[in-house]
């Protein structure tokens, strides 16, 4: 084995002991990471407090009036007597309120699905890498199996069996995403589990779950965070795509993605606000998530400091 090849994802085992305070301090050393964090906190707060910040409950049909539809930003309502800061969509939905509410759904869908997928995927990937043999073959065939299914087919099947809804969209996204995590975790785990210290722990009779949890998992964290960051963003835009294809969240409760896809047909007519403002909100959200993810990865990688 050539001595100059070192595994890119290996990390110093002592780093696990680093206290939280040091972690926070080193995280905040990067301005872009800090900005991302602030933005993300603001966005999450805005999403959580949507009912307090908005003029209208865009999900309450009684508060909508199609006669107020397609108004440009700054127009005032014919019926309700307030100003539509960002205009309205074809249903007379205040875009500003709809974006706040949509943010909630998009964020929720993205985070929940990516987290669930990461947990499931990493677990299975590590088990595959560590156990090898039939277990590995079975899991990796499952990965192939899953990856061979187009997202929309899974979504359509779930839709047919369970009916439409946010929960089912999340389920579909988890089913679509877990395999990527599993593959990555296995890839890293495969390299790691051949290392002598793992062999040694094994010989010393350390239980399997401890080896997986204490030695393999921490080594997989940095690449998994890279993937997870990408996947949260991806989940959000995947949800938008599902909505675009007509199998996403319910039309009366639009997510950011559904707002964009509803609005895009007005794009050519110059009614840019229906699609551009949700698009920008989506963009800012995802950029913030990614800035945080980027910084986290840098911090979690101890060799940066040494």
């Amino acid at each position: 084995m050539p001595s100059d090849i070192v595994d890119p994802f290996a990390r110093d085992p002592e780093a696990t002991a680093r206290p939280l305070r040091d972690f926070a301090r080193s995280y905040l050393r990067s301005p872009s990471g800090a900005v991302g964090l602030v933005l993300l906190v603001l966005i999450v707060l805005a999403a959580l407090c949507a009912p307090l910040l908005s003029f209208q409950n865009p999900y309450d049909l009684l508060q909508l009036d199609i006669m107020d539809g397609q108004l440009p930003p700054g127009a005032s309502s014919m019926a309700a007597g307030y100003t539509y800061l960002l205009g309205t969509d074809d249903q007379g939905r205040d875009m500003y309120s709809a974006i706040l509410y949509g943010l909630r759904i998009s964020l929720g869908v993205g985070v929940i699905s990516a987290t669930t997928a990461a947990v499931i995927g990493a677990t299975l990937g590590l088990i595959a890498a560590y156990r090898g043999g039939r277990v590995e073959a079975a899991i990796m065939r499952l990965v192939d199996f899953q990856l061979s299914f187009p997202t929309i087919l899974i979504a359509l099947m779930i839709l047919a069996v369970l009916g439409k809804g946010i929960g089912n969209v999340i389920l579909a996204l988890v089913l679509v995403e877990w395999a990527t995590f599993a593959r990555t975790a296995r890839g890293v785990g495969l390299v790691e589990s051949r290392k002598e210290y793992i062999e040694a722990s094994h010989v010393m009779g350390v239980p399997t779950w401890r080896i997986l949890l204490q030695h393999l998992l921490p080594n997989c964290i940095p690449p998994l965070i890279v993937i997870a960051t990408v996947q949260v963003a991806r989940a959000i835009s995947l949800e938008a795509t599902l909505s675009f294809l007509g199998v996403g969240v319910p039309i009366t409760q639009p997510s950011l993605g559904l707002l964009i896809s509803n609005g895009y047909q007005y794009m050519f007519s110059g009614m840019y606000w229906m699609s551009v403002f949700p698009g920008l909100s989506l963009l800012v959200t995802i950029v913030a998530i990614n800035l945080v993810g980027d910084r986290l990865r840098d911090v979690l990688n101890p060799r940066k400091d040494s």
Partner: protein
Amino acid sequence: MFASILQRIGQAVFVMFCMTVVVFIGMNLIGNPIDLLISPSATPAERARLIAEFGLDQPIWVQYWRFLVGLVHLDLGTSYIFNEPALRVIMQRFPATIELALAATFLSVLIGVPLGLYAGLRPYAPLSRFIMTGSILGFSLPTFWVGMMFILVFSVQLGWLPSGGRGDTVTLLGVKWSFLTWDGLSHMLLPALNLALFKASLILRLTRAGVAEVLPQDYVRLAHAKGLSARRVVFVHVLKNVMIPVVTVVGLEFGSVIAFSVVTETIFAWPGMGKLIIDSINNLDRPIIVAYLMIIVLLFVTINLVVDILYTVLDPRVQFSKARTR
């Protein structure tokens, strides 16, 4: 290695078997093509006759058994929509998708690797920060929206490139290709870029992450100290290590580019398999869906095999056969 490849093929067959079962059950739950397509003037008797003609009145296992019998005769069924054998319908559209996917993958590597390398080698340069921000944009925006923007800007506003379709094709080896004509290339550029954007960002980030991991390592420092040229260090030592995750992703993503070209193909009216599968799902054209998925599974198994072989080549510590048998 050959035994292992055989084993893989066996697994692939098993996967395909499972998948066809899932599709049969799933399609059965979703609906039937008769209710969707039947003439609104048809009588209930005509509806019953059609359902019987397609064998859709039979229990699902009987339908599945018939499918298996057909399979033995290399017959994947006849499309409900196109009145042609499912396999032929797919194969007619296969080259268009493969071509688009190859172009997209090529573009994403072309964009992703050099930019990622640069950003990794000069992490604090302003250009690197710009690249990294750009990469975030790359996978932030939904594909369909970017596609629409491309059309709006490059076709409608600037009039530089056509808005959709495949353009002129040239027949080579019995297959129609776009990349051999200017017109074809100009039709391909926007959809390929649209499809490549996400992958390019992913590759860019992985490359940069890899470089950042490798650079501070002792062996790289040693190589520098030994007086090896910077170019040699980067291209031999750094790039080689960086290529492991990149190859995995390129390989994996190639399959998903094919599977998920659905949206791009729909927006750009690209007559490939992705658009076909969406239409087939919408029309509940089960023979096409089953055949399409079998081909995709085959493709994925092949891709995974190739990725694993490349893994072994790039990282000698992972031994192909041992990795599987332990």
